[in-house]
């Protein structure tokens, strides 16, 4: 299993898409930081407020902004990793070599999670470096500190895992859609249509029905896939105020996200089980 997993990393690192995604992420990370920092209100703030912002709030809001590109890249990676096996007809080749249907799914998920973790760590590293440079510029070298230095390290690790878990349902969605359509292009398009239109339409429909007919269903909109990432990001902004408050807000959307991921994972396994590798 470990060599099959390494094989997935090897195959993706050799692709041009890998370089494109890394390049785009680096640009987006840097841009999101500078855009937040150059907001007009920043220049009006006293140095102490800027310090607080750069240390905590800004750091988290930048991280919050980075979730979308991180999530999108994970979704695109899983879709393209599976899509190419169908497109190049290599699934049968690796199946003959001993890669089972379950290995096929699991090694790809593990590889994408590895890439996501690395991308997240690179993002956090870039933000940290940029935050320190900016603090030095604004507050002077004597006052520059590590962002999130005031937090318990365990809490920072918790936030890190929250990021990864919030991405899992989208990874599951990419997995399921690509296995269903056997095409990376179709699954990426379907995923985009679902998130951009279907989810928003459902949200609008539920809100409309609940207000128009005074129905209890308004609460159900909280269970939509897109609502989870929204709730997790909103909670993140409170993280620097109170760790307890953050944790009390985060557990529900996290549980729902895990449930979505598990449902999509087992649906994918069921779909593969019923399907012949060779057509």
């Amino acid at each position, binding site marked *: 299993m470990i*060599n*099959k997993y390494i094989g997935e990393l*090897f195959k993706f690192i050799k692709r041009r898409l890998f370089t494109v995604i890394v390049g785009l992420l680096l640009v987006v990370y840097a841009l999101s930081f500078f855009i937040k920092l150059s907001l007009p209100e920043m220049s009006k703030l006293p140095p102490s407020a800027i310090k607080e912002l750069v240390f905590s709030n800004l750091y988290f809001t930048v991280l919050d902004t980075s979730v979308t590109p991180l999530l999108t890249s994970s979704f695109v990676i899983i879709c393209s990793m599976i899509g190419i096996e169908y497109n190049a007809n*290599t699934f049968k*080749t690796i199946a*003959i070599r001993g890669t089972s249907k379950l290995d096929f799914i699991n090694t790809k998920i593990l590889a994408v999670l590895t890439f996501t973790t690395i991308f997240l760590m690179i993002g956090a590293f870039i933000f940290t470096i940029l935050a320190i440079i900016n603090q030095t510029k604004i507050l002077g070298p004597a006052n520059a500190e590590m962002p999130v230095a005031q937090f318990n390290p365990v809490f920072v690790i918790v936030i890190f895992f929250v990021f990864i878990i919030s991405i899992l349902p989208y990874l599951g969605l990419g997995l399921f859609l690509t296995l269903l359509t056997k095409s990376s292009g179709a699954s990426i398009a379907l995923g985009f249509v679902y998130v951009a239109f279907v989810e928003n339409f459902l949200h609008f429909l539920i809100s409309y029905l609940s207000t128009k007919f005074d129905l209890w269903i308004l609460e159900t909109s909280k269970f939509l896939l897109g609502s989870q990432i929204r709730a997790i990001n909103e909670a993140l902004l409170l993280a620097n105020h109170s760790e307890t408050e953050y944790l009390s807000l985060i557990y529900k959307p996290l549980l729902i996200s895990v449930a979505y991921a598990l449902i999509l994972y087992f649906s994918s396994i069921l779909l593969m089980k019923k399907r*012949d590798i060779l057509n």
Partner: protein
Amino acid sequence: MTEEAVIQVNNLSKHFGPIKAVNGITFQVNRCDVFGFLGQNGAGKTTTIGMLLGLIQPTSGEGTILGNSILEEQQIIKSKIGAIIETPSFYPYLSAIDNLKAMFYASGLKPDKKVINETLSLVGLSDRSKSKFKTFSLGMKQRLGLATILLTNPEVIFLDEPNNGLDPAGQKEIRDLILNLVKTQNKTVFISSHQLMEVEKICNRVAVIQKGNIIKTGSMKELLSTDQGVYMQVQNPEKAILLLQAKNITANISTERNFNIFAHATFETIPEAISTLMQGNCLVYAVEPYKLSLEELFLDLTAKE
């Protein structure tokens, strides 16, 4: 001495809705056999190989490869076999070396650079080892497919159209390579092919599949000896037929080229047939022994069906 069955198939079927792609076939492949699996397009060849390799779930029936069930023990089977099904498929953006590395990883093994280089050299791809797969010709793709088979030293090799896209020299190289593997390393080879002349040169046993049913199976020698004889150009065909029949050699009028009779004589009885005609004052102008080719047998069998 009983022969050791390496592949045993019992009543294996695959139905796609109302279509019976494979319909209860039974056959056996023995150790060191080069077994030819012949059939027209859509006869059920690839579906059968797919079921043997666990890529297609059989509707019913059972089979074993090296004593392991094709339904229950595919992981064990995969560690002992090598196969190319249809056109060899690899990652287009990877080089030949990287594709072989990926195949090692897919087998759950760490890539062995020495084995990779030796294998590429064996199939004549050393000079293109760093070229991307997408730049390869069909013949080079076939060679890379063979290289992946040889990587893990399998006991049984499945080849689906191994000569597809190869020039005559390439076909001979592959044929020699396969025969060498059988002779020196006791491999068993299962070949599905349309190229009947190549199959005739390489295989010792064959099975013919038509519309999902096996219509003929046996050793190449046994199948091709069923219809042998000799074409003759004689002075008086009617008299020649009577003379030969008196010696228990059946003969009939022929319109094949310049020959006027065909005698169902074995290679060993040709001199007897000629001397019978000469002694009966029937002059013989030309003689040409005839042996049924696999192509003729195949076309005859499939036409009957």
